[in-house]
């Protein structure tokens, strides 16, 4: 490749990183935690602290929904609670407009999935997919995903000439920039398949609605809608019979769906969503969606008749079409729910490595603009250093603050929704302000130290408040809570290690850098 071409792609890579790096850091850090969505839900509401108002069965939920909103019977769905949690299910219905509500709030539904607000796991998920900003945030993250794709291609092209020779090279030594560059390249190349998955599926999930409208108009003569509906349909078209019939209970239908799914040869079918058309009609159509293992199509659906329980169509495992398999495996590959705990941990580590990739990109940007012979550094590198510290470390600290706020809100018996958001965004804003005001090297050490302490403190406080659970025989639920706390402590130890490394660097590293702490160095004798 010509050197001018490589330089062009270097510019593209730099700009892509500047435009998308910060949002991608948040998406990957929050995304790594979201892998354990169900465990975080357990952490917030383990069965031994359950709130009885929310802990309702699926059928009770349906009965209450239809008593409050009879019109919903035509088209509604129940999102099941993660298995084993004390969180209740929540309902979605469409009577011309979309509504969402939990069992205790059926009288005041919301127009978005805000029904689940106050759930810490969902808040972390919202940070991951939209920075927590409704609608606009999702499109923003879609554009970020497209830029991320461009950064992947340009990064690979720049690195291509030395790709094979340098792939496993990690050269510690006096040239720190080369070490960072090696680490950035090694992670970027070795986890490339993982990153390609996220660039493609992330862009699709965020931009699906506008993309679909544009493609339909531009290239498909308005025929894409029907073709798409047919491609993803998981049930036959059934007309309402017009006569009433008693329904089987939701629990019974879910059991039948599970049995039918298992008969296709998949090794599990964990239902997570039930949808009804024409509830109470003799031809009521019920679709039970569930997560299976040992199949490419992790998400499967069984369609049944609500009155007789007769299985109408199976879309599980091998019975799925190429369209359904692609659709289903796209979600599975994004969420990492296809291989149990091992894959979850792999996704968690790769997610953290991804966050490191974007953070190290910013560090390299600063390092390659460093003045090696002056203690005074270019203004733009100082701004970048402050922004990286404030936004990236601020979000790690902000998420820990959201965990703490959830605990405190529960203690005071208030709705955790507002405290979570206030704590998270407030802490990010404070961290950014702090990083702007303090000397850069001090801000780095102090923010890392505070983040480390926050993680360990939240985990220890939670271990203490659940003390009674640890002396009971352990259950999958208590292990999930314990897992979240131990992971918090591990992350805290990691941040403490980074704080110590930054402190050493500030004192003993090259003095001509934004990361050097001039005032502390004056106080002690420093070797070169």
């Amino acid at each position, binding site marked *: 490749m010509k050197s001018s*071409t490589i330089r062009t792609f270097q510019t*593209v890579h730099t700009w892509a990183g500047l435009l998308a790096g910060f949002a991608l850091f948040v998406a990957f850090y929050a995304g790594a935690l979201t892998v354990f969505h169900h465990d975080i839900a357990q952490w917030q509401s383990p069965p031994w602290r359950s709130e009885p108002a929310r802990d309702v069965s699926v059928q009770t939920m349906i009965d209450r929904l239809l008593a409050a909103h009879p019109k919903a019977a035509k088209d509604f769905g129940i999102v099941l609670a993660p298995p084993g949690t004390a969180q209740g299910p929540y309902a979605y219905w469409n009577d011309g407009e979309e509504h969402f509500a939990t069992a205790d709030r059926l009288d005041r539904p919301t127009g978005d999935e805000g029904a689940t607000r106050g759930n810490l796991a969902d808040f972390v998920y919202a940070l991951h997919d939209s920075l927590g900003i409704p609608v606009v945030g999702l499109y923003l993250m879609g554009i970020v995903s*497209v830029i991320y*794709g461009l950064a992947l291609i340009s990064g690979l*092209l720049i690195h291509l000439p030395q790709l094979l020779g340098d792939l496993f090279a990690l050269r510690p030594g006096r040239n720190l920039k080369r070490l960072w560059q090696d680490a950035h390249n090694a992670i970027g190349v070795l986890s490339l398949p993982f990153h390609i998955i996220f*660039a493609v599926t992330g862009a699709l999930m965020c931009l699906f609605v506008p993309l679909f409208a544009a493609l339909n108009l531009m*290239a498909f*003569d308005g025929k894409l809608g029907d073709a798409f509906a047919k491609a993803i349909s998981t049930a036959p078209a059934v007309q309402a019979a017009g006569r009433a019939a008693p329904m089987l209970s939701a629990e019974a239908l879910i059991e039948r769906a599970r049995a039918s799914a298992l008969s296709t040869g998949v090794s599990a079918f964990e239902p997570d969503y039930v949808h009804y058309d024409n509830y109470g009609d003799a031809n009521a159509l019920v679709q039970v969606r569930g997560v299976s293992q040992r199949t490419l199509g992790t998400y499967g659906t069984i369609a049944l008749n609500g009155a007789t329980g007769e299985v109408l169509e199976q879309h599980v495992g091998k019975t799925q079409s190429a369209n359904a398999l692609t659709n289903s495996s796209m979600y599975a590959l994004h969420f990492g729910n296809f291989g149990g705990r091992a894959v979850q941990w792999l996704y968690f580590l790769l997610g953290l490595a991804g966050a490191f990739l974007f953070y190290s990109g910013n560090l390299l940007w600063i390092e390659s603009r460093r003045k090696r012979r002056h203690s005074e550094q270019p203004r733009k590198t100082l701004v970048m250093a402050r922004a990286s510290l404030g936004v990236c470390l601020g979000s790690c600290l902000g998420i820990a603050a959201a965990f703490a706020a959830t605990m405190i809100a529960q203690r005071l018996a208030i709705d955790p929704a507002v405290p979570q958001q206030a704590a998270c965004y407030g802490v990010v804003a404070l961290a950014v302000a702090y990083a702007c005001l303090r000397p850069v090297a001090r801000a780095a050490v102090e923010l890392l130290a505070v983040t480390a302490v926050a993680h360990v403190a939240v985990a220890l406080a939670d271990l203490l408040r659940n003390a009674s659970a640890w002396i009971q025989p352990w259950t999958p639920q208590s292990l999930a809570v314990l897992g979240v706390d131990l992971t918090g402590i591990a992350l805290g130890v990691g941040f403490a290690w980074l704080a110590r490394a930054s402190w050493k660097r500030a004192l003993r590293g090259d003095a001509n850098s934004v990361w050097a702490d001039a005032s502390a160095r004056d106080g002690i004798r420093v070797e070169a």
Partner: protein
Amino acid sequence: MIARCLAGTVLGFPLSGLLLALCLFWLPGHGQDWLIPVLLLFFPLWVGVMAGSYMFRSGARAWLALGAANGAVFAALWLSRHLAGG
């Protein structure tokens, strides 16, 4: 640089969409059974065109070449539909 970037972004979008539509049209049954796998290729294709457009010598060439490619694929799609009696 910015002109090539814009050309790839703006013209790459319809070009990718039209290419996929053409590809689906020529698949058996107009690609109904392969709709989602083919649509999944949209973003890789678009980003590929964006990256590829930096290989043009100038912004004007990028606009011209990608514009012509759009015209050609659109014509091919229109002809295909027309000849197939669609």
